[in-house]
């Protein structure tokens, strides 16, 4: 009788322990799975943010400077640079858009001041930034964000693009 009672208690204990173990393993699995989903979502959000910011920043700048002789394609030590030219109070100002130290940079100075890559202001982190001219009015921009997400877009410049060789 005593032996049966003790055996029953041991089985109960093992069952509860096994259930607790299963609960712990399942809870761990849910937490790991959740962390992975959350990590991926955050990574994608960062990637989307970087790409969208870079794309729309460049697009809006091109739209704002779409005037006669306002957009010029150039390069500095092989790195592509978009030069946006603006005249104000008889002076000419140039805004440079380019990539330096894995970031999209912007630098606005009077046209007669020497341009240095490091003087620019960081806009958003990028791995690659390439600009090419498809035709006299269409610009092709290719960029890769820090997470490896690729974006390609085309922009029509009504007043034409100076410089740069056609694709």
């Amino acid at each position, binding site marked *: 009788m005593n032996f049966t009672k003790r055996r029953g208690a041991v089985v*109960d204990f093992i069952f509860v322990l096994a259930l607790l173990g299963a609960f712990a393993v*399942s809870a761990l699995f849910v937490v790991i799975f959740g962390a992975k*989903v959350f990590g991926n979502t955050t990574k994608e959000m960062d990637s989307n943010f970087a790409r969208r910011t870079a794309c729309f920043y460049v697009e809006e700048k091109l739209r704002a400077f779409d005037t006669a002789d306002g957009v010029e394609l150039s390069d500095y030590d092989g790195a592509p640079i978009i030069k946006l030219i603006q005249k104000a109070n008889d002076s000419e100002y140039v805004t440079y858009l380019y990539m330096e130290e894995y970031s999209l940079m912007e630098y606005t100075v009077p046209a007669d001041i020497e341009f240095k890559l490091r003087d620019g202001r960081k806009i958003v982190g990028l791995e690659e930034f390439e600009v090419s001219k498809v035709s006299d009015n*269409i610009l092709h921009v290719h960029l890769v964000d820090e997470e490896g997400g*690729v974006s390609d*877009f*085309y922009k029509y410049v009504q007043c034409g693009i100076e410089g740069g060789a056609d694709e």
Partner: protein
Amino acid sequence: MNKQKSRSSIMLMEIIVTVCLFMICGAICIQFFVNAYLADKKTEDLNSAVLWASSSIEIMKSEDAKGALEKCYALGENAGKAYLVYFDEDRNECKKAAAKYVVEDTIDEGKMITLTSKVYKLDGKDKKLIYELTTQKAVY
């Protein structure tokens, strides 16, 4: 003996209720994760679709809209009034066979030229519209 049997039944019931509660919580959690994952994929698709459609519209603003499309998207193909551009799963331009997305660009000439760009997600023979952008340009 009967008293012990009744205690065991209560304990078993308790365990069953706990397991059920845990299963419900787990199912809800997993549902949240799956929804988050699907929303993430949908956002990615929408982001790409907006970029492709706006790019197509920008290209079609050129004087020779069709010619410009053919120059920018060399792997695309003409389908009646439309020009189709295909993209694969990694969102790179590709041929029709490997396509996961298709951008359908149309130019309707009237008093004004209407430019439309529709982005579809391909799923076998079905295609689901993700994004559509329409604009007009004047005829000079």
